[in-house]
């Protein structure tokens, strides 16, 4: 079987996100080749617009049901998720989605308020994840697959205006100027 169909089987069986590294090891291909095949498979699925989709977050992939069939699946698994998020949670999520991986200090500088409780709540709900950077002695936050599934998009990069907002000069400038000043 081709690498593509092997990836297909793995994504199906695992029922959770898998990284290219793990897949490359299992399929015995190098990571680059594997990533190319996975991206191709993802494009195939998304072009076909069938009942399944492949979504991507960083270098990991997950197979999911088509967002268009959301209410059908909710009926089937008796899921009552209403997608309710409060304003502060949404604000925080938005910033993490566009600017992640982002440190808490930077996040708080953008929002102008302390975000500890909201971060904890989002971590527990599985909408964001924390990755420690030991060298910098700092924790970075990114959105998870669960958040991407929630939006019904294929990749965080599909968010409207992603290019602009993720690379906003204003932001970089403020963060740079501000580093170490610690006044907000």
């Amino acid at each position, binding site marked *: 079987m081709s690498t593509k169909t092997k990836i297909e089987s793995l994504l*199906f*069986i695992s*029922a*959770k996100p898998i990284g290219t590294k793990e897949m490359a090891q299992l399929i015995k291909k190098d990571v680059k080749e594997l990533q190319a095949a996975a991206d191709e498979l993802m494009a195939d699925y998304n072009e076909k617009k069938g009942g399944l*989709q492949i*979504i991507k977050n960083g270098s990991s992939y*997950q*197979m*999911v*049901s*088509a*967002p*268009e069939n*959301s*209410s059908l*699946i*909710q009926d089937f*698994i008796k*899921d009552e*998720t*209403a*997608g309710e*998020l409060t*304003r*502060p949670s*949404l*604000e925080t*999520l*938005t*910033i993490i*989605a*566009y600017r992640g991986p982002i440190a808490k200090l930077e996040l708080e*500088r*953008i*929002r*102008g*308020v*302390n975000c500890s409780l909201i971060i904890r709540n989002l971590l527990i709900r599985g909408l964001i994840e924390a990755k420690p950077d030991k060298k910098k002695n700092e924790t970075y936050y990114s959105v998870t*697959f669960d958040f*991407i*599934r*929630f*939006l*019904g*998009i294929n990749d965080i990069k599909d*968010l*409207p*205006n992603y290019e602009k*907002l993720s690379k*906003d000069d*204003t*932001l970089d*400038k*403020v963060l740079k*100027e*501000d580093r170490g000043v610690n*006044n*907000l």
Partner: protein
Amino acid sequence: MLDFKTEKFQGPLALLLQLIEKEELDITEVSLAKIADQYIEYIKKVGQIDPEATADFLVVAAKLLYIKSKALLPYLYPEEDEEVEELEQQLKMYKEFLEAMKIIEGMIGKKKFAFAREFNRKALLNNINFFSPPKKLTKENMSTVFEELISVIRPQEEKLEEEKLERKINIEDKILSIQQIVLDKIKINFSKIMEKAESKTEIIVSFLAILELIKQRNIFVDQDDLFGEITINKNN
């Protein structure tokens, strides 16, 4: 003015942005200076924010007051001012994210969720009795890990040092009292006012009150030499 009762602000920047947009102003230094009073008015009125949030609101209040004082007394401040530029940019950026948030809110509102497969152990494993323990794990490891976990989680019961707050000197009260003095006496020296002051803070507040009264054209002042006596006169 905004209707503060119906508006729930998520933070100082949200409030600031709303005030500026209400007045149909652009995000500039001049607008920030204009909006300072309204912002402070809001913090006073709203009263019940928790202490941590209050701190966040006050940081921005301090910046606004700084910007306002700079607008009033421009010659005292350097031309280029990072502090001001920073708040301006922070606010512009916050606005951009707020707009993005509204789009994301709309996307979630459509409820087009994608779902992952249901987890089913039986479907995944051929053998229901599959058991794969971590070989090196012992019961002693179990208690050690649990004890460590508890010690990390245990809340540090630090007692914060108590410090008495000084008696508050209110600038409004000061303005009223100086107005009263001038009304009674028509003319008074600043040194007289200083004599009655109980602390340095009170002298500063008195001075600010005088500046405010000058601005409101309630009084005018004379000073003949540098560091000389300041005479406060009632304005007719």
